[in-house]
């Protein structure tokens, strides 16, 4: 269905900037963000709360709520620039070529319609099909998202389904028209751990079957390690590092990435001692009080005076890029309090 060759990016974001108007000022939530996702690829966007990852996800569908303002060079979906596209055109693409699943499957389904009717609606929003054909497709979709006894589940109301089942229904609705890109904003945060793994497996399988490109927004590095192909690390609205997933975990280049990886809880070593979780000191700066230069510098153990002078540019690094003046020399300059990193 896609007219994009296999290795070209289906989704290409160029110099995206998102701001929120607050009185006379505009607070920048995302700065100069560029990335690409290819068919069948999963790009994970990770970062702390408030780093701009969710608003980036919304901008991909043109859903940034007012007073948010999106600009930049382009958000290209299958070669077509979505920025500046009229709302009616955007609406035709949403759900059809780019779809999104949300964090809360409990509240994203309509309590007074059966799940089958809701999937049928998702199909008929974009395609003119008979009620019978739509029903058949909805049941097939329920089967594909591994909902047992789909024929009967079709007539169930959302409140009869567990959280995991509801997220499966959301996925079925999102994939109803076989979109080229699926944006998943923390799709498993509201689910318990065993269900999380099943849902992510399901997204992986469907991605392989359809060649869908997936943008996975998460703060869970465990999820990233298992389900992403590439990782984009955001800090304070900027890309600080983008790498292939194996490289990122094996050899994180940015001090923030190192901090994130070090901050993961781990089981004790051979002696089964529990160690205190490593943390990144400080908090994300607020949009209204952004430091000059590298936004991470005030929390960074490696910061030099030069870091505060100018925002470090994104430099090419193995399988990606990193925006840090000291990226190449971190191992030599390991400060005491981050010694555990990469162990």
């Amino acid at each position, binding site marked *: 269905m896609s007219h994009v060759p296999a290795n070209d990016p289906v989704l290409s974001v160029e110099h995206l900037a998102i701001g929120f108007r607050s009185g006379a000022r505009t607070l920048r939530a995302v700065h100069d963000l560029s990335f690409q996702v290819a068919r069948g690829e999963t790009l994970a966007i990770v970062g702390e709360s408030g780093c701009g990852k969710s608003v980036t996800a919304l901008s991909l569908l043109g859903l940034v709520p007012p007073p948010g303002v999106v600009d930049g060079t382009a958000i290209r979906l299958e070669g077509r620039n979505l920025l500046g596209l009229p709302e009616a055109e955007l609406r035709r693409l949403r759900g059809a070529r780019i779809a999104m699943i949300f964090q809360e499957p409990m509240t994203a389904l309509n309590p007074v319609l059966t799940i089958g009717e809701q999937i049928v*609606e998702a199909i008929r929003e974009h395609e003119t099909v008979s009620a019978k054909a739509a029903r058949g497709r909805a049941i097939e979709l329920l089967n594909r998202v591994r909902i047992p006894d789909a024929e009967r589940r079709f007539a169930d109301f959302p409140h*009869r389904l567990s959280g995991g089942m509801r997220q499966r229904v959301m996925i079925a609705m999102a994939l109803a028209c076989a979109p080229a890109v699926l944006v998943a904003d923390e799709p498993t945060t509201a689910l318990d751990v065993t269900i999380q793994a099943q849902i992510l497996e399901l997204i992986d399988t469907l991605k392989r079957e359809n060649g869908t490109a997936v943008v996975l927004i998460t703060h869970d590095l465990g999820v990233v390690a298992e389900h992403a192909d590439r990782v984009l690390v955001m800090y304070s609205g900027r890309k600080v590092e983008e790498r292939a997933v194996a490289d990122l975990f094996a050899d994180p280049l940015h001090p923030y990435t190192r901090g994130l990886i070090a901050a993961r809880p781990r089981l004790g070593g051979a002696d089964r001692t529990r160690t205190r979780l490593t943390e990144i000191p400080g908090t994300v700066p607020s949009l209204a009080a952004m430091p000059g230069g590298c936004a991470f510098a005030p929390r960074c153990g490696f910061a030099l005076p030069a870091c505060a002078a100018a925002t470090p540019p994104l430099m090419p690094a193995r399988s990606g890029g990193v925006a840090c003046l000291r990226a190449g020399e971190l191992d030599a300059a390991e400060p005491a309090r981050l010694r555990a990193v990469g162990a």
Partner: protein
Amino acid sequence: MSLLDVAAAPPSLATPRNGLLTRLLRRPSALVGLLLLALIVAMAASAPLLFPDDPLDMVAQPFLWPGADPAYPLGTDMLGRDLASGIFHGARVSLLIGAVATLVSLVIGTGTGALAGYYGGRVDAVLMRLTELFQTIPPFLFALAIVAILQPSIPTITLAIGITAWPSLARLLRAEVLKLRHGELVQASIALGASDARIIALHILPNTLAPIIVSSSILVASAILTESSLAFLGLGDPNVVSWGGMVGAGREVLRTDWYVATVPGLAIVAAVLALNLLGDGLNDALDPKGERRA
């Protein structure tokens, strides 16, 4: 797709899903309300058959106590008018005014509330200030003033009650729509490419129907009460019999022949009680999760 269809959806796995009526009947208070209301409706429907003569005609000797003459089971008032005939015919007036006035309130109230809640911003500000303007005047006094100016008749009384009772409905609907408008359901639908019209028709209105239906039943009750109060004060339609008017007439003989005011008074109590019980029952029965609690 309406709520009633939802309630009558095909049976599914664990427990059989029942129709709205069945779920309503499972609640004793709702059952009582429904039976009482059915009785009043039956009275209204059968009035011209059982009492073909004008209930305002003087048919027997005055002050016939209930039970004194089998031909007039509820007795007669000070002018010798048949109370039973008055009660039956009065039911027609009460139900008619209650239903039509509520319909007027529904149209104004849901329209105002839904537009204000969905579009927000300036639309919201203007419509809500208008609503507040109406709310500053006590509804009963407002209705009284309108009826006094326009001359009491069934249409003017209905209109007066209808245009004074809508603000609470508008506020309720605005809150419901606002909650849905910014919820994940609407956001997810937009992300799936749904249009404004489809979102309103499919996701917003069906999810506000339950509170609308419930408050409608209460509105009918309060409209009946307002109409009775107006009639009690002598601002009823002078050409038709009304429960409130009957109570008003009986007031003068309350110390000696208290039944003249009490009989129509009980009718009002029954009607208002029935509608309130029904409203409560509907509130539970319309909740799609209601079965769990039942």
